[in-house]
């Protein structure tokens, strides 16, 4: 039956039909992924994907992600340090010294927490109170992308989530192209604090960001998360670029710092901490700012 010329057309037709049935449009793919699907958070707790209408974020980067996913109007409570996005008329909750009564009275159907923003006992207690807690960790760029995608799946905004992630990845690629390829990379000191001086060690996301930005964290080889170097150590490593925390001015430093290359070439900068220190939707912008400052560093000794 299948060897006649007419049958060959039929075969092809069947084959095409069968092939097409395996090919689905992105929309149907998404639809198929989300019907009552459960998403696991970083602690292994699974929540059902749904149209959550009363969301509480206990970390500013979560607030920003919710805004990016178009969930602004579903927020009933945000962390006190959520300042980047304009929020009005929403209850503020401290993610550390937390008032459980406030959260409970908000009757949230979803609470978004992070390991950097909320202590473990708070997470545990919120679960004990019967709340739906979705806990994430943003260790590195992959962690950020995964968080955005997972929250997207959870809140049925996968479309937006993929778009955001794609746009971030795109931005990162564009950024990479602007980076100078010349080695060695300029030595960078990022000061998280000045009294005493504190800088990120090698095993941190911030250090990674500095690398993405085309620089080299002078404490890259340290395996402590936060390094507390002496001034002598900083002078010895002689960074070419120094980033200062908000609120600290270069005039606050004493003369011992003047022998450092970064100071001599006036390459001491501030960056928007909301972009750089919050692993979230603005992280690539943060890397961009770092890269821009690093690139603009002075090469000559300006006395």
């Amino acid at each position, binding site marked *: 039956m299948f060897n006649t010329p007419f049958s060959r057309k039929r075969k092809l037709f069947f084959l095409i039909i069968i092939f097409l049935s395996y090919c689905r449009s992105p929309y149907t793919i998404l639809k198929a992924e989300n019907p009552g699907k459960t998403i696991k958070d970083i602690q292994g707790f699974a929540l059902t994907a749904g149209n959550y209408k009363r969301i509480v974020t206990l970390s500013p980067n979560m607030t920003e992600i919710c805004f990016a996913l178009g969930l602004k109007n579903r927020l009933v409570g945000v962390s*006190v340090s959520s300042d980047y996005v304009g929020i009005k008329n929403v209850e503020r909750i401290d993610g550390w*010294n937390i*008032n459980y*009564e*406030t959260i409970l*009275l908000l009757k949230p159907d979803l609470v978004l927490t992070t390991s950097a923003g909320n*202590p473990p006992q708070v997470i545990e207690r919120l679960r004990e109170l*019967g709340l739906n807690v979705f806990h994430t960790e943003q260790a590195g760029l992959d962690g950020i992308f995964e968080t955005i995608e997972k929250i997207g799946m959870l809140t049925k905004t996968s479309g937006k989530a993929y778009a955001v992630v794609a746009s971030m990845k795109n931005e990162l690629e564009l950024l990479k192209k602007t980076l100078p390829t010349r080695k060695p990379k300029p030595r960078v000191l990022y000061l998280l604090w000045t009294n005493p001086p504190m800088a990120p060690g090698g095993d941190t996301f911030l250090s990674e960001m500095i690398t993405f930005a085309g620089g080299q964290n002078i404490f890259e080889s340290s395996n402590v*998360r*936060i390094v507390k170097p002496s001034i002598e150590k900083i002078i010895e490593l002689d960074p070419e670029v120094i980033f200062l925390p908000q609120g600290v001015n270069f005039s606050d430093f004493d003369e011992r710092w003047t022998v450092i290359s970064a100071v001599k070439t006036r390459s001491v900068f501030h960056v928007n901490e909301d972009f750089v220190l919050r692993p979230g939707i603005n992280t690539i912008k943060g890397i961009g700012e770092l890269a821009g400052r690093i690139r603009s560093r002075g090469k000559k000794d300006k006395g």
Partner: protein
Amino acid sequence: MTPKGIIKPAALIILALATLSILSLCIGTVFIPPDKVAAAIAGKITGLETEFSTLLISIRLPRLLTALFVGAALAGAGSIFQGLIRNPLGDPYLIGVSSGAALGMISAQSLSLAGTIAGLPLAAIVGGTAAVIVVYLLSKSGGKVHTTRLILAGIVVSSFLSASAMFILSRSDSTTVQGITFWMMGDMGNNSISEILVLAPLLFIVIAVVFLLSGKINVIMLGDDLAAQMGIPVESIKISSLIAASLLTGLAVAAAGVIGFIGLIVPNLARYIWGSDFRLNFILSTLAGALLLLIADMIVRVVSPVSEIPVGVITALIGAPFFINLLIKARD
């Protein structure tokens, strides 16, 4: 010293406790009148839950119970230490118990040994008791515990343990650190009813045992030789009391973190009002300690509803001037 002499003041404090307990269930981010409080709690049992049932059962009630237990435990431990070392400056923290308990918990946390409900409290008790044993051994000489040596040993051990705890914290990742740093100042809202129900029986047993021994401890407080000659087994009772005090402190630290000055203030206040007989001082200190911490916690909740001040700050604010006052008086 008659039974009435104990029962009367005790009844007074218990009355105050009952009143303030009800009040503490009413106040918070929303004021719930007492009748609604009763309905909400009853509702959890009968199944007719009200909008406030979870709030009361899962938040306010455990918090109330935590304050009562931790206050009683800390004040009780302070009373024991002051009686044993015969010094009004005796305090669970001076003896190194709290540092030991804190180190125990931090170590367990870092080594991820804190699996079950009983895990961390056990670590705290073990840490606190170990500290007490070391301090006791250091301060013993010629078969007896000398007061001055006990205080000195306590300070030394306490400093060493605190330093060790800080060392472990500096080496661990930031999430654990930040979580622990907050708890180190006292966290009253961290317990669920089931956790309290696990710790409470032990607390009651220890308080009951010490109360039953308080007659003998009272004699020891008046003189080691005096007590020994009259047939009281001084060393074994001293050891039992020290262990009891370290158990109480360990339980308190496990339940609510490090809260200072309750063990110092309450027994001294009780002594000032009702005299220094240990039988009175111990039981009234436990009751008054529960009351004081409850009041401090209510202040915290009313004054800082959003970013809660750790209750250890309030006790320190009241406690430091009190402590200075004691030091000045002691100079006379």
